[in-house]
C-alpha cells in the first residue's frame, strides 16, 4: 500500500513536469498551428538560466595574498565572491543559496524575449508552410540552440542546487500512519509539483477569464473568423508564443535542481513531450495536462519491482505502449478535436 502511494506521488510529480512541457507545446500548436521541435530546447535554455544566474552569483576575483598552492605547485589565490563584496557576507550567501528560485524572476523576461524573437524572426514565416517544413526548421533550430549552449557550457551536466531549506525529504508515511521512512519525498520535488500546478492553473485562468485569453481561445477554435472580426490576432499569437516559451523556460528553471542540466536535456524531453501532447489530443490544453499526469503515473508504476518481475522491461516501453493503446482506442487522443493534424 505504502509503495503504491509512493509511486502515485512520484507519478504526480513526474507528470507535472511532463504536463508543463506539453502545455507549452500545445499552446504553440493550438494557437499558431506550428509543430515546434525547438520546444525542448527552450526548456533546456530555461534550465540554463538557472545555471547562468548561479554562475553569475559565483563570479569572483582573486585575493591579493596566496593561500596555498594549486595542483601544479604554483601559488593559488582564494576566490572572493563579488556578491559577498557587494551585498554583505550573509545576504550574498543567501543569494547564492536561493539562486534557483531567483532565476525564475531572471528567466521570465529572457524566455518571453526569446519566444518573441523566435516567433517574429522565424516561426512567423512558417505558418503557411507544411508541417514537415516546420518540423525541419524547428529541429534545426533546436540543434543550433543546444550546440550554442554546449559551446559555452560544455557537454557535462552542471550541478545546480536547491536552496538549503528545501534539501532533504519529507516523511509522508508518518503523516498517514505508516512506518517511518515508508513514504518519503524530497521537498524540492514537492515544490516543483506545487509550482507546476500553479503555472498550469495560471495559464488556464488567463485563457478563461481575460478578454485576451478569450480571443486566443476563439482563435484556436477558428482563426479565420476571429481575423474577420478585425482583431489583430497575429500580435496576440506572438504574445502567446512568448508565454509558451516562458512556461517551458520556467519548467526548466525549476527542474535544474532535480537533475543537473546538460545541453541535450531538451532532446531527451522532446520525444516524450510530443507523445504526451498527442496522447492528450493535438490542440487540447486539458488533454495535454491530463496525459502528462497519466503517463507520469503509469511510468512510475511500471518501474515498480512487482510489475517488472511480471513484465520484464515494461518500464522501457510503457510510455509508448500506452500511447499506442490510447491512439488505437481513441482516434484523436484523450481530448483531441476532429480534423486537427489529421491530414
Amino acid at each position, binding site marked *: 500500500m505504502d509503495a503504491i502511494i509512493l509511486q502515485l506521488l512520484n507519478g504526480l510529480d513526474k507528470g507535472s513536469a511532463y504536463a508543463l512541457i506539453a502545455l507549452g507545446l500545445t499552446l504553440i500548436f493550438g494557437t499558431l498551428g506550428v509543430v515546434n521541435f525547438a520546444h525542448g530546447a527552450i526548456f533546456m535554455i530555461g534550465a540554463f538560466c538557472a545555471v547562468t544566474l548561479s554562475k553569475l552569483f559565483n563570479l569572483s576575483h582573486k585575493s591579493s595574498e596566496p593561500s596555498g598552492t594549486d595542483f601544479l605547485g604554483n601559488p593559488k589565490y582564494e576566490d572572493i565572491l563579488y556578491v559577498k563584496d557587494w551585498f554583505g557576507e550573509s545576504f550574498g550567501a543567501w543569494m547564492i543559496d536561493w539562486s534557483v528560485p531567483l532565476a525564475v524572476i531572471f528567466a521570465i523576461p529572457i524566455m518571453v524575449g526569446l519566444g518573441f524573437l523566435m516567433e517574429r524572426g*522565424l516561426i512567423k514565416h512558417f505558418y503557411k508552410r507544411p508541417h514537415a517544413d516546420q518540423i525541419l526548421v524547428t529541429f534545426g533550430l533546436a*540543434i543550433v540552440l543546444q550546440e550554442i549552449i554546449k559551446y559555452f557550457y560544455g557537454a557535462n551536466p552542471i550541478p545546480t542546487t536547491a536552496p538549503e531549506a528545501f534539501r532533504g525529504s519529507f516523511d509522508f508515511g508518518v503523516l498517514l500512519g505508516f512506518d517511518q521512512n515508508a513514504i518519503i519525498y524530497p521537498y524540492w520535488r514537492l515544490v516543483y509539483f506545487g509550482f507546476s500546478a500553479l503555472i498550469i492553473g495560471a495559464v488556464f485562468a488567463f485563457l478563461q477569464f481575460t478578454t485576451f485569453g478569450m480571443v486566443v481561445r476563439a482563435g484556436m477554435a477558428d482563426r479565420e473568423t476571429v481575423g474577420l472580426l478585425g482583431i489583430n490576432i497575429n500580435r496576440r499569437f506572438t504574445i502567446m508564443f512568448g508565454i509558451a516559451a516562458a512556461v517551458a523556460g520556467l519548467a526548466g528553471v525549476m527542474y535544474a535542481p532535480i537533475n543537473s542540466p546538460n545541453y541535450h536535456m531538451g532532446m531527451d524531453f522532446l*520525444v516524450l513531450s510530443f507523445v504526451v501532447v498527442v496522447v492528450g489530443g493535438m490542440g487540447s490544453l486539458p488533454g495535454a495536462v491530463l496525459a502528462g499526469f497519466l503517463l507520469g503515473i503509469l511510468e512510475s508504476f511500471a518501474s515498480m519491482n512487482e510489475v517488472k518481475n511480471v513484465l520484464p*522491461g515494461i518500464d522501457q516501453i510503457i510510455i509508448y*505502449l500506452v500511447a499506442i493503446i490510447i491512439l*488505437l482506442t481513441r482516434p484523436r487522443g484523450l481530448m483531441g478535436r476532429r480534423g486537427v493534424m489529421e*491530414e
Partner: protein
Amino acid sequence: MLGLTPKDTTLLIIVAILTLFAPFILNPFPTDSAMAQFNAGYPDLMQRFVIFGIFAIGFNILFGLTGYLSFGHAAFLGVGSYSAVWMMKLLTMNVIPAIVLSVIVAGLFSVVIGYISLRRSGIYFSILTLAFAQMSYNLAYSVLTPVTNGETGLQIALDDPRILDGANAPQYPNLFGTEMNDAVTMTLGPWAFTFSVGYYVCAIIMMLAFYLSIRIFRSPFGMMLRAVKSNQQRMNYTGLNTRPYTLAAFVISGMYAGLAGGLMASMDPLAGAERMQWTASGEVVLMTILGGAGTLIGPVVGAGFIKYFENIFSKINDSILHQWFSFMPEGLEDLLVFLVHPFIGKGWHLTLGLLFMLVVIFLPGGLVEGGQRLSKMFRRKAKTSDEKTDGKTSPAE
C-alpha cells in the same frame, strides 16, 4: 527504354554514371594536398552514401507520395540488419541470403506495424510509428540482448556455426567468394582512387532500387498514392480503398529500409541498436525533406549531404585548420581558426543544424529545388524565348 519516359531514362542514366564513377568524382583532390580532407571517395563512406540513398528512396515512396510521415522507419533498417547478421552467423557469409532475409523480415515487420499505425493519419500516425520504433530500440538495447547483443551490437564471431560454409569459406561477408572488402586502388599521379567490391554491390542494388522507385512513381499505383496525399475524401468517393494503398506503400518502403539495413550489415557485419533510435528515424526524414520530398532524386541527394557532413566535417580538427591557414600571417591564422573552430570537428552538429534551417527557409522544395532554380536561371539566360509551360506534366521528378 526499360518502360521509362525519355526524361526518366536520362535521369536514370545520369544517376548510373554518377554512381559508377563515384570513386573518381568523390576524390577530386590529390591525396597529399590539404584539401584531401574533403575527399569522400573511400569505400566506407561511398557505401554509406548509396545505402542511405536506398533507405531514403524507400522512405520517399511512403512520405513523398502518400504524405504519411513515419517517425519509425529506422526500426525496419535495424530489423533488417539484425536478420542479416543472424543469417551470416547461422548460415553463410554469402551476402545474398542475408540481404534476402533482411528484406523479408523487414517486410513482415512493416506489415504488422503498418497495419496498426495506418488506422490513424496525420501526426497520430507519426506518433504511432515513433512509439513502435522506440519500443523496438529500447527492448533491443536491454531485454532482447540475447537476440541483439544489446549495447555492443550483434557481431559475427569465429565460433558461429555457419552451417552452409565449408572450412575454407571466407570469414567475411562475400558474394560467392569475392569479399566485400576487396578493393582495387588506382593511382594516377598524386590522385588515388579506390574501387571496392562492396561499394559496387551496393551501387548496383541502389540503381535497381532507384529504377524500381521510378517505375513505382510513374505507375498507376504511384498515381493512386499521390491521390491519397492530395485528397483522401475523393479517393473514398471514387470507389478506392485507401488503406491497402497506404499499407502497400508502407510495406514497400519498409522493405527498402530492410534492404538498406541488410546491405549495411553486409558491408560491415555489425547491427547496433542505435540504428533503431528515433534520431535515426529522424535522420531519414531530414534526408528526404532536405533533398526534396516527393522528387525522385531528392532523397538520395539529401542522404549524401547529411552523411558527408557527419563523416567529413566531424573529422576536421584544429590542427588541420592550422594547416589550411598556415600560409597566412600568424595573427590572422589564429583568428580564422578561432572563427571556424565552432563549426567543425565536435561542432559539426551546429553546422548541420544551421544548414537545415537555411535550406528549409530559402529552399522549401529542398536541395533539388535549389538545383532546379539554378538550372532555370542558366537556361533563362541561355534562351529566354524557349519558355514553355510544358514541364508541368508531373511534379514528381
